[in-house]
């Protein structure tokens, strides 16, 4: 059997070692237009089954959600500038933090990396033309939109003030649009399940011949592990919110104490989903970081198997740790012990990854680029955030920290310092592949610094606020907490500016950036073997790959 090679290209000029030098313009193969140009018109986008276009649609949806969630964050931080009322009353403030949480968790963090980059790259990375169920893929986008619309309607129709955690009995008795919101989140959950189902089946069935599980790019493994959690955990969220909804609207209460219900059972049900959910948020970012580290250091991962085992370990053990949200909730002491110990185990898998990433750099030939700056920020912010997680998993320490700003700082370090950083790294890393153009590295560095510094000054003061005792979701606070709150708000403004800068220069680069070649980073991973941007069906011929995704010793294909 002869190997099929893509049509020959004109001889390439020597590729400079550092990507700051201008890249040569490469003509696209004339046999097929790229996926942007393949079909024209709005209908071809809205009714597409091309996984790459669906990824772009998700990018639009999740980016808008990030902006909206971010606006609520800025508003609440402005309110917290003074100990008493600054701009709004307590009820409105409660809506700010609730909407911020709901939008960020369910409309941004959960769908973003799988929906955008998972959709775009997973099929290419396994040699497939598309996902297993392309029309279901489009459906999952529209289900996302419908869920988002329901949620946004709730915001307009009076808003919700329960916090994103919907604890009963407050959520079932408060006069706010709980019914609409739980519908919206339920539907968003359906979208998540459909996406996960699609990815699982795709990885199982559409790998090209000869591509075994242990040859898959690690990003694919991480999306796969995420998909398992999405499929198994999200139904429980749907159930718990549906129960809140029917109680709120029709008084069909199952957690009401006066009817014999137990509010703590709601917490068990809710956190059974919501703890694995945080792994849905971070595992894809781990996948991005692995790709970034290997590609820019031109090194294979220190241990491929360790990274795979760690991802699967997180997916499995992550289901067993939910009680660490409930140490002071009224749960038994014994249960608290069990959940605390299991939480320590799940932390070890992340530690394995951090060790592996660091060691992968060793002996590499590292290019500096915006994604590597985000990676550097990630290594500090995520590790510190993760260690603060180990700290709150220590039961006695969680007693003073629970429901204070310490916990808020912990999860923002992981979610912003981890997932958002991973998202930004992915955006830059894959920008040339998606658009066929390069962004400005100078502006990339500026915005990476603004984002990282802004983030640090937003949330580091919150660890100290939590230590001092300031509870979460507090509208007014004792005056001695003010200076830390002001510092935090200042940091948030810088973070916001950094994100605005990012969007701006990336948008400019879409139209004005210099054209990028097939593989500007000299990566060995599979997506860099197709044109930039890829054609509609990803491959001009059925791919035959002679070298692996991390084979930095083989000749480039």
């Amino acid at each position, binding site marked *: 059997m002869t190997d099929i090679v893509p049509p020959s290209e004109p001889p390439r000029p020597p590729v400079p070692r550092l990507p700051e030098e201008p890249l040569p313009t490469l003509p696209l193969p004339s046999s097929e237009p790229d996926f942007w140009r393949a079909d024209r018109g709005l209908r071809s986008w809205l009714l597409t089954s091309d996984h790459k276009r669906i990824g772009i649609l998700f990018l639009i949806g999740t980016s808008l959600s990030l902006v909206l969630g971010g606006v609520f964050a800025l508003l609440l931080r402005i309110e917290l500038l003074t100990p008493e009322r600054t701009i709004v009353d307590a009820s409105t403030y409660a809506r700010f933090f609730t909407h911020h949480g709901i939008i960020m968790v369910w409309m941004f963090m959960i769908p973003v990396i799988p929906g955008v980059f998972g959709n775009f790259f997973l099929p290419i990375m396994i040699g497939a033309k598309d996902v297993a169920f392309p029309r279901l893929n489009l459906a999952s986008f529209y289900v996302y939109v419908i869920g988002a619309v329901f949620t946004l309607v709730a915001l307009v129709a009076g808003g919700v003030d329960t916090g994103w955690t919907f604890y009963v009995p407050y959520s079932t008795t408060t006069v706010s649009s709980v019914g609409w919101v739980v519908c919206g989140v339920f539907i968003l959950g359906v979208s998540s399940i459909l996406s996960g*189902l*699609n990815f*699982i089946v795709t990885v199982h*069935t559409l790998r090209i011949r000869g591509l075994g599980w242990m040859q898959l790019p690690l990003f694919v493994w991480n999306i796969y592990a995420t998909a398992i959690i999405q499929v198994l955990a999200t139904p429980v969220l749907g159930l718990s919110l549906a129960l809140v909804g029917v109680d709120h609207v029709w008084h069909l209460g199952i957690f009401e104490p006066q009817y014999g219900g*137990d509010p703590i059972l709601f917490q068990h049900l809710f956190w059974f989903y919501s703890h694995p959910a945080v792994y849905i948020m971070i595992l894809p970012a781990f996948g991005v970081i692995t790709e970034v580290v290997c590609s820019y250091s031109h090194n294979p991962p220190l241990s491929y198997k360790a990274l795979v085992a760690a991802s699967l370990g997180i997916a499995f053990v992550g289901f067993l740790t939910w009680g660490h949200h409930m140490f002071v909730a009224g749960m038994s002491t014994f249960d608290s012990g069990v959940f605390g110990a299991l939480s320590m185990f799940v932390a070890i898998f992340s530690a394995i990854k951090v060790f592996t990433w660091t060691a992968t750099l060793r002996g590499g030939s590292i290019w500096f680029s915006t994604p590597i700056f985000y990676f550097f920020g990630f290594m500090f912010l995520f590790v510190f955030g993760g260690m603060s997680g180990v700290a709150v998993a220590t039961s006695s320490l969680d007693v003073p920290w629970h429901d204070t700003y310490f916990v808020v700082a912990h999860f923002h370090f992981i979610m912003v310092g981890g997932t958002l950083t991973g998202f930004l790294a992915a955006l830059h890393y894959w920008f040339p592949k998606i658009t066929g153009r390069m962004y400005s590295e100078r502006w990339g560095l500026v915005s990476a610094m603004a984002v990282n510094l802004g983030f640090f000054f937003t949330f580091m003061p919150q660890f100290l606020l939590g230590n001092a005792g300031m509870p979460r979701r507090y509208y007014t606070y004792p005056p001695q907490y003010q200076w830390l709150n002001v510092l935090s708000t200042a940091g948030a403004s810088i973070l916001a500016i950094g994100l605005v800068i990012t969007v701006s220069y990336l948008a400019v680069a879409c139209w004005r950036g210099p054209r990028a070649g097939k593989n500007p980073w000299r990566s060995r991973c599979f997506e860099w073997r197709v044109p930039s941007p890829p054609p509609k069906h990803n491959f001009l011929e059925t791919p035959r790959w002679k070298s692996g995704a991390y084979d930095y010793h083989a000749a480039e294909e």
Partner: protein
Amino acid sequence: MQPLGAIVHDENPYADQAQREHALRLGMWVFLGSETLLFAGLFGLYAGYRARYPEQFALAGMHNEEWIGSVNTFVLIVSSFFAAWAIHLVRGDRPRAAMWSLGAVILLGLTFLGLKSVEYSHHLAEGIAPASYYRYAELPERGARMFFTLYYFMTGLHALHVIAGLTVMVWLITRLRRGKATAEHHVELEMGGLYWHLVDIVWIFLWPLLYLST
């Protein structure tokens, strides 16, 4: 049947029909996993509340009419048999007979729903309604109220799935009528059958918890 690659159909990423069918079957199993977790949440709540109110759960369970529950279990098991039988018939190249078998599934499913409606109406007449609407004076304790609330939620969610399953059966009958399923290629029938079996299995777990107290 020719491999799908020969058919110009943009949406299909498959190399051949076998790959497509493998994907669809796997997809259905993954979906069933999801559905299992959905019901598992309610079973978990049942376990939690039963541990809290053991006696009242037992008393309330005794009040449920055991004969309706048991007949319903029998009805669903038989309907599952007919769903599997339909696949067997299709494989034997007897699509018309398979249609009748699926029709039996629908009939039995409707019987199930009918018996449930009778049961619900009996309960409601006695004042047994969920949560804040509960008015049954003979078992006024909170534990009994909680049992019946869970009863309504669990059987209600199950009934919704029965209705969904019956809709799927109707669609499968249509497919058979249009000749879209053949002896070699009938993956949609298999998927529908799998779904119906899940619906049956969930009931088999509900039945002892809700009807067979001593």
